[in-house]
């Protein structure tokens, strides 16, 4: 079951009018592709996507990408599960409520275990290996965890585990994250990858439904299970595929989204999109190859440390450490640095963009500058504390 129903406030305005897991990522992918590819590559082919906000484009993408890869005859599927409003007459009030409202699915299918995932994380992971561990230790809940620098754990769930891997403490977004035994500079962070025994999942969300909590796994359910001494275990994240790097990133925030793109343009990225032993699937539209050409007077285009998707044309411009989605046009003498340009964006002649995310279909006028003067930018656009500017869809330029 993939939780894909968040409103995506942390990624606003990129989530304006579209579901967060459907947001473009890495040039040709959508966020959800990483989780779904991990499922398919792990042999898990019965998938429920719990959605609720603006999921039309997400639905189209999932159908195009996944319908042909799964077999109805083999009872394989990716099903969309919006709030049914039958068992409870409300939208999903939290992650646990999303499961509670869909207990009928678990009742019908009666699986022994449920793999519970998020649709806004970028990583490569074999869930089957984690499932084997979950069954071996006899856990009610197994949580995947990754070591992160302690100072970066303040925005994550942090686990404390004993030497047998049993979780003995859990804090959601602690101001002062606990360090690991013998490694005080590191913390164990919750990746939002869970394997549940089905009955424990059904019981905990049912009990939680009768409280006035936030109905959230990280804030309510897991701390209570740990506090009650129930068998909750930690599974240390091992990356799937060839890359030895333990790469996992929450791409559901503007900063995380942008940083993950900068990770991808590294000469040897830790998240290896070129590793065909653990492919990341997506829908590829029928577009011509990307093209890089000289401008007038043979001004050469300079493109380096960048991803160019199909259908892009860079003409006599400079593109550096940037990710271009399909059908982007960059006109002569434009300069693009550390930018993420989504589908059908056009950058006018001589424009200058640095650390900017430009949403679909936006045409940046010739000579326009964004990123050089954050105070001026903040009058027109959202600028994050980290200095990332977002140019939303349908923006009007004077």
């Amino acid at each position, binding site marked *: 079951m993939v939780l894909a129903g968040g409103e995506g406030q942390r990624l606003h305005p990129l989530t304006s009018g579209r579901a967060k897991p459907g947001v473009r990522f890495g040039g040709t992918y959508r966020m959800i592709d990483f989780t779904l590819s991990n499922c398919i590559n792990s042999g898990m082919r019965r998938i429920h996507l719990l959605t609720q906000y603006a999921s039309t484009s997400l639905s189209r993408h999932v159908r195009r990408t996944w319908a042909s890869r799964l077999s109805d005859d083999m009872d394989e599927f990716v099903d969309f599960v919006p709030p049914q409003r039958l068992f*409870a007459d409300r939208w999903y009030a939290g992650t646990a409520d999303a499961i509670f409202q869909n207990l009928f699915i678990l009742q019908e299918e009666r699986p022994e275990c449920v793999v519970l995932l998020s649709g806004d994380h970028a990583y490569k992971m074999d869930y089957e290996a984690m499932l084997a561990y979950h069954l071996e230790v006899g856990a009610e809940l197994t949580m995947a965890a990754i070591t992160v620098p302690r100072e970066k754990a303040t925005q994550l769930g942090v686990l404390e585990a004993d030497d047998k891997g049993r979780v003995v403490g859990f804090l959601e977004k602690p101001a002062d994250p606990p360090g690991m035994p013998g490694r005080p500079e590191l913390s164990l962070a919750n990746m939002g990858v869970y394997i549940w025994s089905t009955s424990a999942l*059904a019981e905990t969300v049912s009990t939680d439904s009768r409280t006035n909590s936030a109905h959230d796994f990280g804030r309510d359910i897991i701390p209570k299970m740990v506090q009650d001494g129930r068998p909750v275990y930690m599974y240390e994240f091992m990356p799937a595929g060839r890359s030895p790097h333990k790469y996992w990133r929450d791409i559901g925030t503007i900063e995380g989204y942008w940083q993950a793109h900068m990770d991808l343009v590294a000469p040897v990225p830790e998240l290896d999109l070129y590793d065909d032993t653990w492919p990341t699937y997506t829908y590829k539209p029928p577009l011509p190859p990307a093209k890089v050409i000289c401008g007038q007077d043979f001004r050469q285009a300079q493109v380096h440390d960048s991803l160019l998707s199909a259908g892009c044309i860079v003409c006599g411009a400079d593109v550096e450490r940037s990710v271009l989605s399909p059908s982007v046009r960059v006109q002569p003498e434009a300069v693009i640095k550390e930018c993420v340009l989504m589908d059908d964006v056009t950058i006018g002649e001589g424009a200058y963009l640095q650390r900017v995310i430009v949403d679909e279909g936006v045409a940046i006028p010739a000579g326009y500058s964004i990123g050089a003067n954050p105070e001026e930018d903040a009058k027109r656009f959202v600028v994050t504390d980290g200095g990332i500017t977002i140019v939303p869809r349908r923006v009007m330029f004077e």
Partner: protein
Amino acid sequence: MEKLRILVIEDDDNQRELYKQDLVWVGYDVIAVRSGQEGLQALREQPVDVVLLDIAMPGMDGIETLGKILDYDNQMPVILNTAYSSYKDDFMTWAAEAYVIKSHDTTELHKAIAAVLKKRGIQAPPEPAEASE
């Protein structure tokens, strides 16, 4: 002292009447209705202390009614009541606070009502036989 109020939602006329007479005899104020819709309406019209809910009902069944009751008031103690012991295997019923198998002997029912009231710090009325001792 004001009587504690039990809402009985049961489509079977005989069973509903049996519960009503029995619970009134014990000392509860009882509202007895025949469907989930009527039960939800009754909940909105007056305060209720405990709901006794049948599962197998025509139209809106007990599972759907349970969801809608908890949607209205997620603290409401709901005791599910059915003829089949296997219903405990149904995840959809796990949000109920207690389960009682249908029977003409209402001892278990009285215990279940007393237990859910006790969790809320409310004393159930004593059984009439005990009261007369």
